[in-house]
């Protein structure tokens, strides 16, 4: 039986030049799109300022920790991709860390939603418990308190 020899065709030289310019063009277009988004963020046309606020208007540590760990791991993956041009093997401990972080956020949200006071804006009094059949009352705005000395 005769041996078959596989030959891999090599890419012509002129295609290297085309690929180079395609790569540069793609990067410039993507960079311009990202820059457009950043300009909109700078002008507050894209507003992410309430990213860390809970439903009651206060800063939420559960949201903050989820944001911090997502950003740290995303930066790590980003740096790896820049260095090696492929996706990294993410260690199980990092996945565990992200799991604990997301679970804490979700559980905290569940606890907060389990009572009406957790959803009220600052300065509002929760409505009284309504008996079945009666019409619910809207929440009452608390009167301003005199300044403390």
């Amino acid at each position, binding site marked *: 039986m005769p041996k078959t020899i596989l030959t891999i065709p090599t890419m012509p030289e002129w295609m290297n030049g085309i690929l*180079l310019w395609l*790569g*540069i063009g793609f*990067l410039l277009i993507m*960079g311009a799109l*990202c*820059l457009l988004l*950043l300009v909109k*963020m*700078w002008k507050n046309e894209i*507003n*992410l*300022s*309430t*990213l*860390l*606020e809970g439903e009651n*208007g*206060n*800063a939420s*540590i*559960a949201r*903050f*920790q989820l944001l*911090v*760990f997502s*950003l*740290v791991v995303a*930066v*790590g*993956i*980003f*740096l*790896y991709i*820049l*260095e*090696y*041009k492929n996706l*990294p*093997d*993410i*260690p*199980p*401990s*990092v996945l*565990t*860390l992200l799991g*604990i*972080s997301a*679970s*804490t956020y979700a*559980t*905290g949200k569940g*606890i*907060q939603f*389990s*009572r009406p*006071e*957790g959803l009220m804006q*600052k300065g509002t009094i929760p409505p009284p418990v309504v008996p079945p059949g009666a019409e619910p009352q809207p929440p009452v705005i608390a009167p301003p308190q005199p300044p403390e000395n």
Partner: protein
Amino acid sequence: MFVAWLLRVEFGVLLLLFVASLARQLWQRFAAQKRGYLAGSVEGWLLLVVVVVTAGRYGIELARVAGQGAMPGVSTSLLMMFGVGCAIYLGAKAVRVIRTQS
């Protein structure tokens, strides 16, 4: 080679600008709020400290092993500390809710 350099510089700069823009928006929001915006509970401040320590140490580890061919893992002690911090935070929050309802 030039494309790889462009990729690194361009998206590195864009990432830094994104983080700066986000921080600016969050700071503007914080400055516009009244007193009490950050007034949190003891367990909230405890979780904040744990998060800063965990994220800081992992960030340092990321920077230290950059270029060695693998993403670093999180040490077991750090993971345990973060898990215990989260458990204390959630437990205290749940107890407060139960006491408020009763």
